[in-house]
C-alpha cells in the first residue's frame, strides 16, 4: 500500500513521517514517532488512555486517523515537563498517589490539562465531568480528582 505523508507539530516540534494510509494517530505517535505517552487501551473509544490534545481539543488518538491531522498542533503528556521540571499536574498526580499502574495517567493528565486551560478554578463536578471519558481500574478515582484540584490551586497561587 502506498504511503502517505503526514506533518504536524508535536509538543512544539515539527514532525514529518510517511505512514500507511489508515494508520491511527495513536500508532503513528507510538510506533513511528516514538512518543509512547498515549496508551492503547481499548482501541474502542471507551477508556480514554490514548487521549491527546489536538488544536486545543481533547481527542482520542486511537479513533483519529493520522492523515487527518496534517498541519495540526498536537500535545501529549510527554511534552508537559519543561527543562526537567514536571508540570503542576504531573507533580500533583505524584504527590497525591494518583497513579498506581500508571496506564491511564497520560490520558487523565491530557483531559485535566484541557480542563485547567479553560477552567483554571474548576469545581469538583467540573473535574469529574472532564475525566468522565477516562477509565482507571486502580485508584478508585478519588486521588486523581484530588490531584487535579490540587494542581488547579497551585496554578492559581502561582498566578496570584
Amino acid at each position: 500500500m502506498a504511503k502517505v505523508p503526514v506533518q504536524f507539530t508535536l509538543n512544539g516540534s515539527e514532525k514529518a513521517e510517511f505512514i500507511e494510509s489508515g494508520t491511527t494517530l495513536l500508532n503513528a505517535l507510538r510506533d513511528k514517532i516514538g512518543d509512547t505517552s498515549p496508551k492503547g487501551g481499548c482501541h474502542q473509544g471507551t477508556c480514554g488512555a490514548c487521549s491527546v490534545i489536538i488544536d486545543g481539543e481533547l481527542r482520542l488518538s486511537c479513533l483519529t486517523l493520522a492523515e487527518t491531522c496534517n498541519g495540526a498542533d498536537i500535545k501529549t503528556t510527554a511534552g508537559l515537563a519543561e527543562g526537567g521540571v514536571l508540570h503542576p499536574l504531573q507533580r500533583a498526580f505524584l504527590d497525591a498517589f494518583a497513579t498506581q499502574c500508571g496506564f491511564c495517567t497520560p490520558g487523565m493528565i491530557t483531559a485535566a490539562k484541557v480542563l485547567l486551560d479553560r477552567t483554571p478554578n474548576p469545581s469538583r463536578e467540573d473535574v469529574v465531568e472532564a475525566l468522565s471519558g477516562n477509565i482507571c481500574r486502580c485508584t478508585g478515582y478519588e486521588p486523581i480528582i484530588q490531584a487535579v484540584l490540587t494542581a488547579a490551586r497551585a496554578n492559581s497561587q502561582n498566578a496570584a
Partner: protein
Amino acid sequence: MSLALQTFSTVKDANAALQAAGTRYLGGGTLVVRAANEGDVSTSSLVRVTDPGLSQIAVAGGKVRLGASVTMAAIASHPELAALAPAARAVGGPAIRNMATVGGNLFAPAPYGDFAVALLALDATVVTGDGETPIETFLAGRDTTRAIVTGVGFASPKAESFRFLKVSRVKPKGVSVLSIAALLELAADGAVSSARIALGCMADRPTRAKAAEKALLGCKLTPQEIAPALAAAGEGIAPITDPIASAWYRAEVLPVHLGRLLSN
C-alpha cells in the same frame, strides 16, 4: 488489515467514491475507526469530505440547521441550542463529544445514538445529495442508504416544550440503558395538545412511542392522567439486550422513566 483514506473537498466527489464496495464514510471516526480497530474487515476504504460548510450551525427564523460534521461538543456549547445541550452532552465523554458528529449519530446502532433520539422527537429532516427525507423514513432505511448526509434541519424547540432523559448505570458518562426525548405542546389549561416521543435502546435504532403519544393527548401532566400513556409506552417496542441491560429490564423500566420525564 489496512484502510485507505480518500479525502475530497466536495460531497459530490465523495459520493461517487463511496459507491465502491467496501467503502464507508469517515465522520468523527467514533464508529468506523472503532469498527476497524475491532477487526471489522468489511471496510477497506474510507472517504471523507473537508468542506467547512458541513461543520456549520445555522439558527434563524425559528429553524435550526446542523451540518453533518457538527460535533456534539459544538452543539452542547452553542448559546442558541441550549434546549438540545442535554442530548448532546449525553453522548460519550469530552473527547468523544469533540469527535462524534450529528451525521454519524444517525447511523449509531443502539445502545448508541442518543442524539438521534432527540432528532426523531424533533421530527428533523435529514438532508442528503438526493434531497430531504423525514428522519423516521431515513432511520428505517439507514442500513442501505449510500448517499452522504450533509445535515439535519428542524424547528427550534422552545426550552419548556422539549425534554430529554438518558438513563445509564455509570455517571456522568455511561452507555444508555435507555434514552427518551419528548416534544410536548401544552394548551393554556395545561393539557397536552401535541406529543412526539422518541425512544433509544427500544429497538436497534431510535423509535417512536406512538401509542403513548396518542394516549397523552388531552391529558394534563399529572401522575393520574399520564398513567394510560405510560401503560401504552411498551407497545411495539423490541428492546436490545446487551451487557448494560436485558430487553426484559429495559421494557420494565421504560414506563417508570417516561413517567419521571413527563411529570417533572
